[in-house]
């Protein structure tokens, strides 16, 4: 199989830091990645030279490793398939928005954050947007293109108090244009970030050891991304480098867990019309009522199993090989009431916002960090806690989920794997885990 992935992307960003617009930035990247797969070997080359000569040179470099492939020229009939997406329905293209209007958003957020409390000493507000147009053609006759527009806005606050400094962060990121600011107010994002920093000024050290944890709806969803998402990527499975290998059809989580990876959710951060191998995204049910039902697949790993890609072949840019990646990964909502779940928890920790995480797919051990958390005492939220990591083992933690509420929400994130970053969404309702090790100092 031979494949050409052409990409033209434009990015722009602006940051207001310490009340100053220090620098507006913009960039342009255009090029093609050429992949040749022969047997078990992939040859890959990329170039920013899109002339015929440049492309042929890259093709020759990519093909050089495919020594057992038959040489020669073969004509391939191509036509755009029915899944082709032209644009992602962005109503207000970022390039059509005056730079001064983008800066107004930053100033509004800065003022709202500072007005939240006198202890807010530093505010950093950033906004950024990208437009990425891709075209994929391969020797199987596939021809597809997509036009992906993404817009993000983030606020980081530092509050100073008697016990030192604390930080609060909040972001908004959608696969849409600037129309998102008609629905989401930058002042709300700023106040959320500021309140997070202010709450922690009086925070006590987090407890140390195994405790019941209640995760707020939309607190990050990173739990599933790390606890099982990466472990369900077929590249880890085919190398037997995942704790979920060989578990198909088995109970790997609480029956309350139905987990979906879905690149089709319009507007979410991990949404697209075709993946970076030209395949349509899909709503893939990975775990149904606790039973493992499928892994996520790209073209290369699906081919080995004689099945179709699940639309999870993604790459950071034309300079990278595609691999299996998540899109929008979420737990289906349950039926319980979030407030009641807290009320029924005699002691534990309530996490209203999670930061990032990391997993070892082979052992299943993973960590995820809190950026806003509170003690639960007698069914009530009491004192705020300082930041800490939680550590657990994927299958063990998933079995310990004993309550899922109905207040589902999604959050955006950036997923890093093997040196490549891609935008993903994570979602979950309020849920309780009966015991996870919290890495505090108290």
């Amino acid at each position, binding site marked *: 199989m031979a494949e050409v992935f052409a990409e033209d992307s434009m990015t722009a960003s602006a940051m207001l830091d310490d009340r100053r617009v220090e620098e507006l*930035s913009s960039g342009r990247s*255009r090029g093609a990645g050429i992949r040749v797969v022969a047997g078990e070997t992939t040859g890959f080359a990329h170039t920013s030279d899109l002339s015929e000569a440049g492309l042929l040179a890259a093709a020759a470099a990519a093909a050089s490793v495919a020594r057992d492939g038959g040489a020669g020229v073969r004509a391939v009939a191509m036509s755009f398939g029915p899944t082709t997406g032209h644009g992602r329905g962005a109503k207000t293209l970022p390039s059509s928005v005056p730079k001064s209007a983008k800066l107004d958003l930053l100033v509004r957020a800065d003022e709202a954050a500072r007005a939240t409390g006198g202890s807010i000493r530093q505010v950093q507000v950033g906004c950024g947007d990208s437009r990425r147009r891709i075209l994929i053609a391969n020797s199987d006759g596939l021809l597809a293109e997509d036009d992906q527009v993404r817009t993000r806005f983030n606020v980081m606050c*530092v509050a100073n108090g008697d016990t030192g400094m604390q930080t609060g962060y909040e972001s908004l990121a959608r696969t849409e244009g600037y129309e998102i600011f008609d629905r989401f107010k930058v002042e709300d994002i700023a106040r959320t970030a500021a309140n997070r920093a202010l709450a922690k000024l009086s925070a006590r050290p987090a407890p*140390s050891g195994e405790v019941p944890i209640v995760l707020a709806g939309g607190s990050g969803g990173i739990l599933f991304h790390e606890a099982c998402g990466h472990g369900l990527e077929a590249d880890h499975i085919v*190398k037997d480098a995942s704790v979920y290998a060989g578990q198909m059809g088995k109970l790997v989580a609480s029956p309350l867990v139905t987990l979906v990876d879905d690149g089709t959710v319009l507007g979410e951060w991990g949404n697209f019309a075709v993946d970076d191998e030209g395949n349509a995204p899909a709503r893939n049910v990975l775990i149904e009522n606790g039973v493992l039902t499928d892994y996520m697949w790209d073209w290369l790993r699906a081919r080995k199993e004689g099945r179709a890609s699940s639309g999870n072949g993604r790459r950071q840019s034309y300079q990278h090989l595609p691999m299996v990646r998540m899109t929008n990964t979420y737990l289906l909502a349950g039926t319980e009431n979030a407030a009641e779940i807290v009320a029924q928890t005699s002691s534990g920790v309530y996490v209203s916002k999670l*930061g990032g995480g990391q997993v070892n797919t*082979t052992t299943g*051990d993973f960590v995820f960090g809190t950026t806003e958390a509170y003690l639960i005492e007698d069914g009530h939220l009491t004192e705020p806690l300082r930041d800490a*990591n939680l550590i657990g083992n994927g299958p063990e933690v998933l079995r310990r989920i004993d309550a899922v509420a109905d207040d589902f929400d999604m959050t955006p994130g950036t997923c890093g794997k093997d040196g490549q970053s891609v935008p993903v969404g994570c979602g979950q309702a309020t849920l309780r885990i009966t015991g996870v090790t919290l890495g*505090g100092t108290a």
Partner: protein
Amino acid sequence: MELATSVVAQAQPGEGLEVYVTRGTENEVRAYDGAIESLTSADSSGVGIRVLLEGESGEGSRLGFSWAGSLHPTVVQAALSDARDNARYATPDPDVVLAVPDGTAAVEQDLWDDGVVTTPMDEKIALALELERATRGADSRVRQVSSADYSDARVEVALASTTGIRSSTRRTTAFVSVDAIAGEGADSQTGTGFSVGRAPGQLNPEEAMADAVLRSTRLLGAQKARSGRCTVVFDPRVVSTLLSVVASALSGEAVVKGRSFFAGRVGESVAGTTLTLVDDPTDGRAFSAASYDGEGLACRRNILISDGILRMFVYDTVSARRAQTRSTGSAVRGGFAGTPSAGCRALVLSPGPKSAEEILAEVGEGLYVQSVTGIHSGVNPVSGDFSVGAEGLLIRGGTLAEPVREVTVASTLQRMLQSVVAIGGDLRWLPGVAAGQTLAIADMQLSGD
């Protein structure tokens, strides 16, 4: 350099220009199960342009930036006009200037080894294949090698500005790494080994293999440990990672913007009296050694902490002006698409007198940590809060004992620096911004059962 100076020559009256041009070639081979899984070869190039619009007297100047992943003349011209337009929207600021040569001579370093260019691709492929084969065969408990990689890069950078900056550098790097999975019954554990150099001939694949095998096999049977306070001995690789976090709090930019727990503490005791921390890119042994910083000023040896006393921060030109001091030649930039900021490049902790074994013997009881996770989610360089996932072995009777997994170790960075009880003499030059050696820190909280 011709391209950089030709763009600089287009500066208009009242305008400063800085042009950063890179050109590079990369190769990467991944071996799996006795075959080449993938082979990547590519050339890449790009330009980053900063435009400084000088304001009326006293008003201050404005900076704009634009980059492009191509050196095609029309693309470079478009980047220049984008950067000019971007500059119009910045806030005028008297501290915003481009770097000016400051008379400090650069320590010229030879960071280029032709071996990266002259070694045939077949030999590079053989390195990855042999590393994979040797690791599989090294220990009967190694049940899988999920990847064995060889990669190299050569990159040339030219930087020119209207303020007289002219720097041009080139460097090569070569790297092998291997991920081993050891198994016994239902238990699986992982370990990574690597080796870095400036050419394939400087690599030590045997060491990478041995490290991956040791790290994966010795964790077999690992259990959670009991929660409690203990002394933690960190492996050199982990120490390099810890220092890179401390580095972000030593950035003068973080300090002037009130985002460092070190702010306002110069001259005070911030660490144990045996601790001396130097950022020295002029030491050619450092993998990240450099002659010039990201603004084209000479890199220099900066003593940040000596005998436990905080002496200084690292600055680029703008953060130095905000702090009313001079650049320490510490501008770093993430390639052509990034703008300069103040950061450490080659941190080294002055080695102590003891070997790793002697430190373990002295510590007696505690936890040896061979790898950490969640550095980005559990360590906050603003507040200093520190909490990371850890794998390693218990220390009992002064030697390594049972393996441990699924625990965290926690403290604050401030407290950890004050609680350093031993610094190893086993300094290792590692990729990244810091070297590493064995380090023992007392009174950390272990969270497990």
